[in-house]
Every structure is written in structure tokens, then in C-alpha cells.
């Protein structure tokens, strides 16, 4: 496991910035305009282009965080949009952004890749995000505790990791997480906080390895 150094200073410096990175939620009107685009694409696949161009970049980055390799990411990304085109006729507007449906497909394709390859799932983390999470579990932010936190994360089942990943490492609002995972917003919140509680208990029980 990689060692982490100089956490405190970086966390103090980045916390103010992290708030501004939270993605904006779409208005009802924008979602309706997008639904019109989807309907046009359902009649004529060539009309899928504006949706493809709008979401290619964010979907690519979503997959890249979970794979860490550009070429592999590009392959999976193509698969995602091909699947989206193939299943587009089944999509109906339910008051959630179209992107949530794409992220769900992307999440499934990534999971499928790891099932097929048998490799360990990549989880991309910025150091300051770990610090934020540690403050949420009320744990002192220092190098020892961060090392321990990674050990605890390593024990986590995939479903829990996905929630933590989207909430703390991608800073998505609960509403968006719920849309992607197809659960309610309150369910997403409850699950996340339960995960954090379990993490806190584990961290209090265990000593960090190597110390």
C-alpha cells in the first residue's frame, strides 16, 4: 500500500476548493428538453449524436476512475454507448436525468469487465477526499489513520465501495447517487452513513499494520 505523506497541509489547502467541485443538478426543463432529444434518437439513431457528444467525456472519466487505463477505458466506454443505443427504445423519462441511466450502464459494464478478467477493481482516490471522509467518521487526520482507513476500505464489499466512491471520491449529491443506483435518496443516505459507522468501529478496533 502506498504511503501517504504531508496530508494535513494539503487537506487544509484543498477543502475550500472541494466544495466548488460538486456537480450541478439539472432543472426539470433541461431534463424535458433532453427527453425530447432521446425521443428523437429513439426514432432515428443518428439523432443520438448530441447525447453522445454531451456525455462521452463524463462517462469516460467515470470509467477511467474505475479502471485506471486509457485504452481499456475507451473500450468499455464504446461498449456503454453501444449498449445505450441498443437499449434506447426501452428508456422512458421518469423525472431523472438521462445521464443517470448512462452511468448505470457504465457501472454494469465495469463490473462485468472485472468479473471476466478476475482482476482487482481499481478505486481512484484524491488524498484530500480521504481526509474529508475521515472527518465525517470523526477520526483524527494523520498518516497512521489514513493508512488504516485504506485497510478498512480494502475490506469493503463492492456495493458499499460504490456508494463511498460516488459520495466521497466523486462528490456526487445523494440525489444523483440514488438515480444512478436506482434506489431512493433517503436509502442512499442511510446506507452511506451505516457504512461510515461500520468503518469507524473497525478503525477503533484495529491498529494500523506496521506500527
Amino acid at each position, binding site marked *: 500500500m502506498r504511503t501517504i505523506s504531508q496530508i494535513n497541509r494539503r487537506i487544509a489547502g484543498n477543502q475550500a476548493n472541494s466544495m466548488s467541485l460538486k456537480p450541478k443538478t439539472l432543472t426539470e426543463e433541461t431534463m424535458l428538453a433532453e427527453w425530447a432529444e432521446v425521443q428523437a434518437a429513439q426514432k432515428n439513431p*443518428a439523432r443520438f449524436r448530441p447525447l453522445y457528444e454531451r456525455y462521452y467525456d463524463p462517462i469516460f472519466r467515470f470509467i477511467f476512475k474505475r479502471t485506471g487505463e486509457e485504452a481499456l477505458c475507451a473500450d468499455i466506454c464504446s461498449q456503454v454507448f453501444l449498449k445505450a443505443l441498443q437499449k434506447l427504445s426501452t428508456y422512458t423519462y421518469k423525472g431523472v436525468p438521462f445521464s443517470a441511466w448512462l452511468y448505470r450502464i457504465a457501472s454494469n459494464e465495469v463490473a462485468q469487465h472485472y468479473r471476466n478478467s478476475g482482476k482487482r477493481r481499481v478505486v481512484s482516490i484524491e488524498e484530500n477526499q480521504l481526509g474529508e471522509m475521515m472527518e465525517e467518521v470523526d477520526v483524527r487526520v494523520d498518516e497512521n489513520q489514513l493508512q488504516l482507513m485504506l485497510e478498512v476500505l480494502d475490506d469493503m464489499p463492492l456495493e458499499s465501495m460504490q456508494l463511498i466512491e460516488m459520495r466521497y471520491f466523486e462528490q456526487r449529491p445523494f440525489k444523483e447517487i440514488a438515480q444512478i443506483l436506482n434506489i431512493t435518496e433517503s436509502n442512499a443516505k442511510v446506507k452511506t452513513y451505516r457504512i461510515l459507522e461500520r468503518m469507524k468501529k473497525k478503525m477503533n478496533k484495529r491498529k494500523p499494520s506496521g506500527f
Partner: protein
Amino acid sequence: MEKNYNFNINPKKPSKEAIQKHQNFDALLEQFEAEKATTKPTPVRRLWPLLGGLAVAAAILFFIITNTNLFDLNAPQGEMQTAFIQPPVPEIKKQFINQKYKSNKKKLFQYEGGSSVYVPAGSFRFADGRAVEGDVELQFREYKDFIDIFISGIPMKYDSAGVEYQLESAGMMEIRALKDGEEVFLQPNNVLTVELVSEISVPAHVNVPPGFNIYHLDTTAKNWKYKGKDNIQFIDKYNPESYDKELKVLKNNFDTNIKNLESSWPIPIKPVKPQKADGDKYAFDFEFAEDSEVSKLYTNTMWQVDNEVDFKKATQGGNWVDVKMEKQGDGRFKMILIGEKGEQVSLFVEPVLRGTDFQNALINYEIEYKKYNNALAERTQKLQIQKAELEKEFNIKRNQITIKWNSDSNEIIYVKRKVRNRFTINALGIWNCDRPVLPGGARVTATISTNKKERLRKANVYLADERSNTIYEIKQKEKTNIKYHSSNKQLLFSLTEKGNVALLTPEEVPVNQPTDNIQNIILKQLETVPKTEEELRKLLKFDREEI
């Protein structure tokens, strides 16, 4: 040791360009179509009702096509000032460039700015289908920026599958042909090859222009028709090394500043350690002028010769009338003895002292050496501090330049780039190189007026953005999308019934999207009534100091 996950701490993120490399919608569509073609066909018996319906529709369509000129792109469309195209300032028009030529020959028409139209021989026909012979007058005009588009009155809205888009142009043109004043048309299956040169605003780091399409304005259907992809290329020699150039200039300035700093504080002169005379060697004893460098050395200095042969050469050579001393790098001097007749003898000597002179000089040297060391240390320390400040300033500026040119940066720098659009046309009229964008912003109803309560000519307000060649039209009391930009310069403007320009400058245009259903827009009326395109351009500028 990681067991379930592979944690990637602070991973390097892919750049926008790296991601764009993999983006290919055409390939995706091809793959989708290919995979669809291998799926099982629907049983025929289920298709009978559908086939029957299709046959009826086809018959109706056939009747329509053969009995109207609805789909004939070359059908007379008359003067382009139909109810569909309404120039807001009829007195100000983009002039056609008219050129006559022999229609039985091919011709390449070239226009100022680099645009061109290639017309094959025998391209034209009359409305009744007869081929045109003899002289034909080709009329051509371009619309390159928002002012051209505004003057033309050509709408930039595009309806596709029930969704209304705004067209952002990379170049628009209008082309007509006349034979003795009568409008003529392209022969069927004839195409003209067009190259339109224009300018678009793109992020500085972009090496390939964004995708644009070709559209033809169908004034009968009152809509743009998609005709294919635009073959668009950058044609200016945009220096991709601008980032390196800026850095180089910054580095050169930094190096110059360091040099100037060092020279502003000269290095202290190291004192020369006195040497004791060697009793076994010969030495000269001179009296030099008081203002000479050598006299500034220790008093009673003698000049010791290393080599006995050189000393004998010097002393036995003749009558020396002058001597020159040239300091060498190793503390010695080259002594040049000059005779009456100009003959010279040179030998190497070193300054030495004897007895108490040497003792006193040594004591003095130690004192001077300490002073020298202190002065040197002080200089080094002070220079270090000042150099560190210069370096800090250099690093800040270098980061600013890097952020400016870095494609991952939140702040994207836009530049104007020249492009050439290449496409073919199978009909005359208005052709546009565009990309459709969703207007975005907030959908509101606007009430529009001027600060002098004058009536507006078309009761509309036009919104122009420095980064796109288009005009957004905000209609009085009709729900319209209004998108204000916090970072782009925008102009809101209109014309009063008397022809005065009324506007809000980029500093006055709101930056936040409207949050209410009603948006009150009060334009500031200017005194000038523009009579020409040039006068209009002087008023409609994004840079306020030029208004």
C-alpha cells in the same frame, strides 16, 4: 497489502484531448447498424397492415411530388426577402459581388478573404428546364459574424425532430445566378464546389476544429435542411508553441533580471597575499607612477624573477627606457622591457617583499582578507534573498502561463482561428456551415423597452455572444430561452422605429440567469442612427472603449 481493490492515489487524469481522440460517433453508429442488420427479421405476416399503409402513403407522396415543386430545391424562390427572411435594417444590406462569365466554360470565382466557388461548364438552366447559354451573372455574398447575420435577417433557429436548436455558424453564404436579369437555377445532378473562409472562436489548446454541418435554407418549408458534414480545417498558422514562447520570454526576462541583480552588486576584490622574497633569486626594484595599478600593491614591492636566464637577458640587453607590466591570472606579471629603439624583452616576475615589509604586509593582508570574506558572505546572502524573490515571482508567472494553456484548467482561453469550410451545393440560395446547439439558459418572457421609452422596430431584442457567430432573438412577450454568460462578453441590442441603436454593453448585460418568469430588459438608446454597415459595426462592439 491490497487484497480486494487496487487503490490509485492521486491518479493522473486524462486530458480533454486524450478523451476526444477516442470519441467517434460515426464509428459507433456504423457498429450499431451492422449489429442490427444481423438480428432476426420480423415475420412478414405481421407486416401486412404496415405494408398496406405504406403503399397508400407512397401514392399520396408521388402525387404531391409530381404536382408541386415543393421538393424542388431549384424552384423559384423569388427575392430572398420573403416573409420568412426579414432584415431588421432594410436600408443596410450586405452587397452581392456580381461577376459575369461565359456559362459554357468552367470558372473558379475567387473572393476577397479567400472564399471561392467553382462552377463547372454548363451548370445552369431556366425555370422551364432549358439549358442556359451565353453570359451568366453569378451573385455571391458572405455572412461571417453576428453583425452580418443580424443585417441579413436570416433566422438562426433550426427545428429538428421537434427540438429547437440555435445554429452557430462557421460561415454562411448566399449565391444566385441571373441570365439577362432572369433568375436561373442549377442543372439537376450538377454541383458547385464551395470553399468558405471564416473565423470561429475556439479554446486555445484545440488543434482540430469542432464538428460543423452543412445546411441549406428552405424558405418554403421555413427551415434549414441538413445536407451533410462540413469539411472544415484551420488554415491559419496558429503557433502551437505559444505556450513555449511565453515561457521562453518569461525565462529570458528572469535570467536578465538575475544578471542585472548580480552586476548591481560587484564581487568584492580578493586581496593579494604577499609573497616573501627568495634570497636565492634575482629581483627588480622599480619606482612606478603613483596612479598605476602596481603601485597600489604593497609598498617596497620587488619583482622577483623565476628564471636566471631571463634576468641576465634583461639586464644585459641594453638601455631600457620603459617597462610594461601585464597582470597574469596566477598572480605573476609579464614584464616587458622596452629599449630606445623599440626593442623588447619580456620575462615573468612576481611581486615579493622582504623583512619587515613582508611582515607588515602579511598582517594587513589578514585584515583585508577578513573584510573581503565578510563582504563576500554579505553579498552572497543578500543576493540569495533577492534571487529567491525573483524566482518566486517567476514561478508564480510560470504557473499562470501553464494554467492559461493547460487544457485541464477550469479557465479556458478562447482565440479566434481562421477556418476553411469545403462542401458542394446542389442548389442556389443560402448555405450555412453550422453546429446546432441547445439555447440553454432560462425560458422566460421578456418585456423590452428603452430608457427613452421609444418604440422598437421589431419589438425584439438581439443577443450576441463574442464566442459564437450567431444571433439569439428574444421576442417581446413570447417565451424565449435567454442565456447570459458570466465569462463571455455579450451584447443586447435592438433598433428603435426611428433607427436609433439601443443596447446594453457587455458590462451592462446581466451575468446571472433570470430566475423569474418575466425578464425586464431596458436598453440604453444611443443618439446615432447608423446608415451604413460600417456605422453599425462601430456601435455594436464587445469592447466598450471602442464604442
